[in-house]
């Protein structure tokens, strides 16, 4: 059911939005509103909209996450990394390619964790991170991911 922009804004303004419940009430006509909120000046609201986009049934909504990975705003990048776990394999790799070289352990952690079928290019980066990352957690995640993914 299509929501108004204001309805969606209120739902996402919750301190702890129920993303699954909100996503279940959306249809393709809501994607434009999600996209608009993902560009909002309020970074918390925008980051929540990016995450919601990853759960929307409309397949084009995932482009919001892919675009968010290019954002200059750190919270939006974090949200894209977090949302990546919900995307299809091919789109996960696109987001991962944008974020995996990011000089931020938190983002790398989320990206590596989100991968299910890493591309050859991403695997190369995982191998490098598995030895070079400053974070033991990221190094271990990369090692495990390389062992457990095709």
């Amino acid at each position: 059911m299509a929501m108004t922009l204001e309805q969606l804004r209120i739902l996402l303004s919750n301190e702890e939005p129920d993303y699954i419940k909100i996503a279940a009430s959306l249809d393709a006509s809501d994607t434009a509103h999600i996209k608009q909120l993902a560009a909002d000046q309020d970074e918390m609201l925008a980051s929540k909209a990016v995450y919601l986009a990853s759960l929307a049934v409309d397949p084009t909504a995932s482009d919001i996450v892919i675009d968010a990975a290019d954002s200059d705003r750190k919270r939006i990048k974090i949200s894209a990394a977090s949302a990546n776990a919900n995307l299809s394999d091919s789109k996960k790799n696109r987001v991962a390619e944008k974020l995996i070289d990011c000089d931020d352990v938190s983002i790398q952690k989320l990206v590596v964790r989100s991968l299910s079928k890493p591309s050859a290019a991403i695997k190369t980066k995982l191998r490098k991170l598995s030895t070079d990352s400053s974070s033991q957690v990221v190094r271990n995640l990369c090692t495990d991911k390389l062992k457990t993914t095709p």
Partner: protein
Amino acid sequence: MAITEAMWVHGHAMRVEYPDRLSSTWRAGFYVRTVGKPNSTNWFHFAVPTTVIVKNKRQMVDSVMLRFRAGSNHASVTNVHVYDGPTRIATHDGLDISPSGFEFHRFNVAGKPDVLWGIGISIGVKFSGTTDAQNTLEFSSAGCDFNLFETVRLHFKVLTAPDIAIDTMLDSMRQVYEPAGFRVVRASDENLNLPDLNVVDVGQCRRGQTTDEQDTLFANRNNAGANDVVVYFVDATSPPYNGCAAHPTGQPGAVVASGATRWTLGHEVGHVLGLSHVNNNDQLMTGNGTSSITNPPPDLATSEITTMRNSNLTINP
């Protein structure tokens, strides 16, 4: 909430910090009259006799009061600072109070600290008139109210400092909790260097359900007692929330994201104390986001106050 103890002193007790800046001081039976020299400032001090323990309960400072009047709006009280022994426990600056008749003014002491050494009230004054009549201030009394509040003890663990200062968040929380009878004590602060947990996985943020990362983060409880609440200030949560109050059993606490609002701290601790969302933007626990709060400070409903009182995390005085 009933005041448990109130102490007053007569205006006669006032001491002047800079006597040379006054044209005259007159202690009459009614009050102390001070006449300031033109374009002068000064500090007046009242030492309030303080019963720090009553019936085996250490008292908490609620507020201080002044009763005074001014000869004109060229003589005014500009600051009220409250001391417990050597420690300043409240500051009210930027005031400009010049009542033409004797008026009672109350000044809150946020945080409601335990009183340890005795209360001092320091009053900044300004005289900008040209005549003695204009530059006259008369103080009849000064006093302090004490109370006993249920207490929530918070420990702050900072991985990333939030956009809105923690002091502001705490002050905002106290604006909501104190009128409801809850004192919020900032028991300790600690910086945590845990970059792997700076964006912490909180799953769906459901009460009683925690992720491995929450379990690891919440194990950091240095200085915290079993019934103390630990708040972890992180860069962000995954998925993105303003905060999340889900915590491991026996480790009460919450995370607050760096983009949180000034009310998020109080809101998340409200969850820890057992409160749920409501559909009312006048209330702290609104489910529409604390950024939507109208009529700040927001309220706590009577039923919510009861729930908080029944929590084992609010400590009886």
